[in-house]
């Protein structure tokens, strides 16, 4: 970090990383005043500003840490556990939480801690695939509709509306009952149904940005449509897209676990947090821990993801004055 030249007002420094090139060497009153008062004005890159703002969002920071810990537990946990994924402890069948089996065992004596961690691993993996795939599809389609306008946009917009009136859960149930047995197929199915939410956001942003001068300048310089769309406009839409992608992880976890709970999602033996609950719900009366523990993990993940998304929304907003 370097000392700023005197040509920047403190507001410029906070709000925008590029002011020096716009107004070079014109000392503003505010900067002069700030210097006289002995204030230290530093310039920070966009990434640095984002991080500084994010850090102040204490809940989001905690959420990120908890999420990282959970992911680590899901990945490392099964590997460290003394029990195998389908190993049966016949002497301790249907047990509640004990010292040997902190999460208890299922009806045929398999350790639920290993199974829950592996379930979490699959649930998280599905959610990440859904978030990436949905964001990719939604961004491309939304960008095309918003940038080109006209007939193309009408088609895009009507398709988005169509998907929004079809209740997603209904389609997932109908199709899931036959086709969604594996983690990858259900991730694909969820992405196919969820892209309109992102596409609508991206389309709106593209509609707004394509009228601005920097796009006109790029056109005048001879840039073609794909270059303008993805090199010039897309970076401006980075914030909302990242926030939506983060929140999608939570949506995907909830949808996937709901489907698995209803018995049409990922099928056993592949464990997910949802189908572990589905398998345990029959013994709700005798052993509620087998339902409440995986349920607690689902809530923990979605809660963290939502706090993280909220923190990123503030941090990635270049007009935010916090921090």
């Amino acid at each position: 970090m370097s000392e700023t030249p005197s040509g920047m007002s403190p507001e410029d420094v906070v709000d925008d990383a590029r002011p020096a090139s716009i107004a070079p060497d014109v000392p503003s009153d505010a900067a002069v005043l700030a210097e006289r008062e002995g204030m230290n004005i530093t310039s920070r890159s966009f990434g640095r500003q984002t991080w500084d703002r994010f850090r102040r969002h204490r809940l989001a920071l905690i959420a990120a840490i908890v999420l990282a810990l959970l992911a680590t537990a899901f990945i490392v946990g099964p590997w460290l556990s003394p029990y195998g994924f389908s190993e049966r402890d016949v002497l301790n069948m249907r047990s509640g939480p004990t010292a040997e089996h902190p999460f208890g065992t299922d009806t045929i004596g398999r350790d639920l801690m290993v199974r829950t961690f592996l379930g979490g691993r699959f649930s998280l993996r599905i959610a990440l695939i859904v978030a990436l795939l949905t964001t990719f599809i939604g961004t491309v389609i939304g960008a095309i509709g918003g940038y080109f306008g006209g007939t193309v946009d009408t088609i895009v917009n009507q398709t988005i509306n169509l998907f929004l009136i079809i209740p997603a859960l209904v389609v997932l149930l109908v199709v899931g009952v036959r086709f969604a047995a594996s983690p990858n197929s259900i991730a694909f199915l969820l992405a196919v149904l969820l892209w309109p939410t992102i596409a609508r956001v991206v389309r709106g942003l593209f509609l707004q940005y394509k009228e601005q001068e920097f796009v006109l300048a790029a056109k005048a310089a001879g840039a073609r449509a794909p270059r303008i769309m993805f090199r010039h406009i897309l970076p401006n839409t980075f914030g909302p897209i990242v926030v939506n992608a983060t929140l999608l992880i939570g949506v995907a976890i909830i949808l996937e676990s709901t489907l698995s709970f209803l018995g049409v999602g990922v099928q056993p033996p592949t464990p997910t947090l949802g189908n572990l609950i589905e398998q345990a719900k029959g013994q709700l009366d005798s052993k509620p821990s087998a339902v409440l523990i995986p349920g607690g993990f689902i809530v923990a993940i979605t809660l963290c993801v939502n706090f993280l998304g909220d923190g990123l929304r503030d941090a990635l907003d270049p007009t935010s004055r916090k921090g």
Partner: protein
Amino acid sequence: MFAYVVRRILSTIPLLLVGTFIVFTLTAISGDPLARLATADVDEAAYERIIELYNLDQPIPVRYVNWMSSAIQGDMGPAPSQGSQPTFNIVMDRAGNTARLAIPAFFFIAITAITLGVYSAVKQYSKLDYFVTGFSFLGISLPTFVFGLLLQVVFGLWFFDWFGVRPFYVLGMRTVASHGWLDMVRSHVLPIVTLWLVITASESRFQRAAMLEVINSDYIRTARAKGLPRRKVILKHGLRNALIPLVTIWAIDLGLLLGGSVVTETIFAWPGLGRLLLDGIFQQDLNLTMGVIMVISLLVVVFNLLADLLYGVLDPRIRYE
């Protein structure tokens, strides 16, 4: 205005047709009603009957047109998984059971979402505001089925005995006619609470944002500056405008609620539309599945339309040409 309404309705119809056609195709290719017969010991005639019932020898678009043209007239065919009763009657019957949950849930949601949203906006960054924000984050992050199961554990296992009385039923529907008023209320409470939490969480957050935007606007400052009491300004000038976006959300949510919640109805063994849909899918009953989906989509579309129109009625700044 009238022209706009007509145009909106006309533009919705093709969307509904395309939507139901897609769902019909998906339903038709993902369930095979003949597969069920393969395990049973039946003769050739049974196969013939099923093929004739669903027109299985026709291409899917033809089947869709057939189904749709009779469905519009209220004839959705018989439902084999329900003793071949008319699908239409079953769907209407179950829609009534769903409405028993949806309508009270809707009123509780409306009241609490406004109260929480307005209070937390007016007292922004107070303890209460943080509490409401925490509540809505929790509600948004809690999957319906986890919350429903939690209620069942709490009231079916931990607190099922209050001074010798069971406070709430955790399974099944009881009506006034069959069990009396008290049991009716006791069986309705938990499913309604389940529906309430999830929707109230998102609505109160929405209402908070809408209210904050209004409170910080110029005309509120003007009203305060000319000496009106704060309370009056917030309730008369502020709330009126902040309600406009919420009313449209209400319309959409009411449509969703009336369409039935598959998860809530499954957990609480409630004989509503959501359960019926799941039964239809699992038993590969095409008529039943399509019948329920048709009603759900219709509700969603009609209430979305209503939301749009209400917006125009409530906000005089919006004009339709």
